[in-house]
């Protein structure tokens, strides 16, 4: 039995469950760097020319594929390796994620030195992307089991780390590039090596301190429900059964459309505020607007998800989707009113609910399908994120370009997109309202048999 095996991570008497959120945060704060990858874009377009792009340098569209590949492999690896994650436990998964994410950076550094873009695609995009997916789902089921009394708060805290990781990643990367740059290098390759080592160590710290609770552990004073009530079940559904239920696909649509709509704002935040308030908001102020949205995105993950522990998962999604739809319709109104504060406030609330949607979904899945394989089920649901990651920017950019080519300007350039996003949220709202308890026939009957590798779960 090795150090990284699940059996070695079972907590002993006296272990504080409050050590588990820092373990989860260490991983999520690291992989959240993915949101800050854009800080490398301009320096990478000058890898040869150093001070300016020269003909053999990479172009921005070529470089955009690095992030797209990483997000695609995040969703794909979370979906494919979810069952493995549940079987081997959080320590081995976090260590594997650390190897993939840190190793991806190191390999990408060689790609920069050799000026071979495919090496960066493979390093950060494919291998790093798998690290993102494994890291993202690794603590979910462990947190839910340690915090059965407050699953929304626990998973919200971890997933908040993914938002916060962008702040650390962008500032750290800029500082490192400043430190390493010289007349002969942009400092990107050296920064990749440093980041690979730093993030590997940081994620390994999480891997070392994480523990799973002993079988049938429960927090002091917590009395688990003995019978299912409402959407909260006391039974368990395996990952292979879960994705055959209508509830899984209803939540898939909810997450997909909530993320698509949020990306609609994030993707265009900077040009949108400048074009809606010409002369009033300049590029520097638009940068501040993007930073503010990121803060609300992060804060919303923890606050909304914690709030869902009190009012329930379905009602909190009604708020995200209904209030979200109303606020999207208010964005053109805010633009026409000329009030920057009103516009910023509307967008900030929308982004808090975008983050909240991400953070609350694991607890919603736990309510519906039980805690047993919630990490793996969550992994499969993250394919909705991959789809939204393509759908959102494509919708937003095509509509904007189409209108721009027809001479439309200002608020009218964005109004149709906002109404479309509101429409998507209304569809999501209908799906959320349609969620009912999972039918009895999907419940697992024998937990020990299910956790065996290769066991049949039909």
């Amino acid at each position: 039995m090795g150090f990284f095996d699940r059996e070695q991570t079972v907590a002993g008497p006296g272990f504080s469950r409050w050590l588990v959120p820092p373990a989860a945060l260490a991983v999520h704060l690291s992989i959240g760097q993915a949101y800050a990858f854009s800080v490398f874009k301009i320096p990478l377009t000058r890898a040869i020319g150093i001070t300016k792009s020269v003909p053999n340098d990479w172009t921005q569209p070529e470089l955009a594929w690095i992030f797209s590949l990483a997000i695609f492999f995040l969703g794909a690896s979370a979906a494919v390796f979810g069952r493995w994650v549940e079987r081997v436990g959080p320590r081995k998964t976090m260590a594997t994620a650390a190897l993939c994410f840190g190793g991806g950076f190191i390999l990408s550094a060689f790609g920069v030195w050799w000026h071979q873009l495919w090496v960066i695609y493979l390093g950060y995009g494919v291998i790093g992307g798998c690290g993102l997916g494994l890291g993202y789902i690794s603590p979910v089921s462990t947190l839910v089991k340690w915090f059965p009394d407050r699953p929304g708060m626990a998973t919200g805290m971890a997933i908040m780390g993914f938002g916060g990781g962008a702040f650390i990643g962008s500032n750290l990367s800029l500082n490192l590039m400043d430190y390493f740059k010289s007349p002969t290098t942009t400092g990107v390759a050296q920064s990749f090596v440093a980041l690979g080592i730093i993030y590997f160590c940081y994620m390994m710290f999480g891997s070392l301190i994480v523990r799973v609770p002993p079988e049938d552990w429960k927090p002091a004073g917590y009395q688990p429900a003995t019978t299912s009530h409402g959407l909260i079940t006391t039974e368990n559904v395996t990952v292979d059964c879960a994705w055959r239920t209508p509830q899984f696909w209803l939540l898939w649509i909810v997450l997909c459309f909530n993320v698509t709509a949020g990306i609609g704002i994030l993707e265009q935040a900077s040009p949108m505020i400048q074009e809606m308030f010409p002369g009033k908001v300049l590029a520097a102020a638009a940068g501040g607007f993007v930073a503010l949205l990121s803060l609300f995105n992060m804060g919303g993950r923890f606050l909304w998800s914690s709030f869902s522990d009190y009012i329930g998962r379905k009602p909190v999604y009604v708020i995200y989707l209904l209030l979200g739809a109303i606020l999207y319709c208010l964005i053109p109104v805010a633009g026409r009113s000329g009030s920057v504060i009103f516009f910023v406030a509307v967008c900030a609330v929308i982004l808090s609910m975008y983050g909240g949607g991400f953070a609350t979904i694991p607890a919603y899945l736990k309510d519906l399908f039980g805690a047993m394989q919630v990490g793996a089920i969550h992994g499969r649901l993250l394919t909705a994120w991959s789809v939204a990651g393509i759908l959102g920017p494509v919708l937003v950019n095509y509509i904007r370009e189409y209108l721009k080519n027809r001479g439309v300007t200002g608020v009218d350039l964005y109004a149709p997109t906002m109404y479309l996003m509101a429409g998507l949220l209304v569809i999501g709202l209908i799906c959320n309202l349609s969620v009912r308890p999972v039918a009895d026939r999907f419940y697992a009957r024998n937990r020990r048999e299910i956790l065996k590798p290769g066991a049949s779960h039909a």
Partner: protein
Amino acid sequence: MPNETKTTGNAVMLMISWIVVGVPLIWGVYKTLMKLPVLFH
């Protein structure tokens, strides 16, 4: 295994762990907050 009703834990390890994750997060948020004043200028 019988249910545990208390989890006291190692207070020092707990403190170190929260500092390790808290300090970088606070630093990142602080650096980001510094970009905000220009929005409301």
